C-alpha cells in the first residue's frame, strides 16, 4: 500500500471518529447541515482552483473521471468546518472571533501543506500560504453565515 492511500484511509477514519465522538447528539441536524454546506462550497472552490490552474492532484481516487481530489473535499475539509462551528466563540468579542478564524484557516492549510510536501495527493502550482488562507477564510465565513441563518429554522438548537 502506498502512503497516499494510507493517508486517505487514515483521514477518513480520523474524521468519522471525530465527527461521531464530538458532535452533540441534540444538535446533530445543525452540524450535519454545516457538513453538507461545507462540502458543496469546498467542491465549487476546488472546481475553480483546478480550472484556473492553481493546484493539481496527481494521485486521485477517480483517476479517469476527474482531475480533482475526492476525499479531501468530501470529508476532510467539511470536518474542519464542522469543528470550526462547534467551537465558534459566538458570545466573545471580535478579536477572539478573528483568532478563531485564523486558527482554523491555518489549520486547514497546514493539513494541505503537509499533504502537499510529503505525498502526491496535492501539488501546488501557483499557491501561496496567504492566498490559501484567504480562500479558507471566505469559505468559513460563508459556512458561518449559512449556518446561522439555517439555525433560525431549527427547533433543536435554538439556544
Amino acid at each position, binding site marked *: 500500500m502506498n502512503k497516499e492511500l494510507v493517508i486517505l484511509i487514515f483521514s477518513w477514519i480520523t474524521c468519522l471518529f471525530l465527527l461521531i465522538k464530538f458532535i452533540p447528539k441534540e444538535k446533530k*441536524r445543525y452540524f*450535519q*447541515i454545516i457538513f*453538507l*454546506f461545507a*462540502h*458543496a462550497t469546498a*467542491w465549487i472552490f476546488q*472546481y475553480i482552483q*483546478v*480550472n484556473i490552474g492553481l493546484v493539481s492532484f496527481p494521485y486521485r481516487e*477517480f*483517476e*479517469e*473521471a*476527474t*482531475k*480533482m481530489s*475526492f476525499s479531501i473535499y*468530501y470529508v476532510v475539509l467539511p470536518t474542519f468546518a464542522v469543528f470550526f462551528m462547534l467551537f465558534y466563540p459566538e458570545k466573545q468579542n471580535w478579536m477572539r472571533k478573528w483568532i478563531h478564524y485564523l486558527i482554523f484557516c491555518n489549520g486547514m492549510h497546514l493539513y494541505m501543506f503537509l499533504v502537499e510536501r510529503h505525498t502526491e495527493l496535492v501539488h501546488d502550482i501557483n499557491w501561496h500560504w496567504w492566498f490559501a488562507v484567504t480562500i479558507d477564510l471566505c469559505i468559513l465565513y460563508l459556512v458561518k453565515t449559512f449556518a446561522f441563518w*439555517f439555525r433560525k*429554522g*431549527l*427547533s*433543536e438548537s*435554538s439556544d
Partner: protein
Amino acid sequence: MERWILIGILAISILALFFLVPKNKAREAWMIFLSLQIITWPAGLLAVEWNMIDYPIQLFSFANEFNRSSFTFEFFLFPLTAIMFNLYYPKKIKKTGTFFYYFLFAGFFTCLEVIIERHTELVNYISWHGSYTLITVMVTLFLNHTYYHWFKKGLKGTETNE
C-alpha cells in the same frame, strides 16, 4: 444547439425554484439540495470512472478537461427534481400510490435523459442503459426522502404536523 438545451434546463430550473418553492420551505429545499449531492457526486464519478457513461458536451467547453461527470444533470437538475419530489410528496397515500409517485418522477427524469441521449451529444451511454437511470434515481430519491423525513423532525413548524 446542445448548450442551448443546457441553458434552457438551467433557466427552467431556476424559475421552478423561484415559483414552486415557498419562502417558508427554503431551509427544507437547501437541505434536500445539499444532501442529494453527497450521493450524486461519488455516484456520478463512479459511472464515468467505470466507463459506463460519457458527457461529450458540457456547459463549459473546458469542463471535460478536468471533470468528466455532468455538472448540470447531477448537481442541478437532479437536486432540483429531488426538491420538487420531497416538497410535494403526498402525505396521505397508500403504498402503491407511493411507488407510483416514485415511478412518475424517476420515469420523467429517465425519459428526458433517454431523449437527450438519442438526439444530442450531451449524454452518451457506453455500457449504461435507461433502465439503470430509472432504478438508481428511484433508489437515490428513496434514500434522500428517508433522510429528509428524519431531518424535518428537527425543523420548526413541521414537527407539529406529523
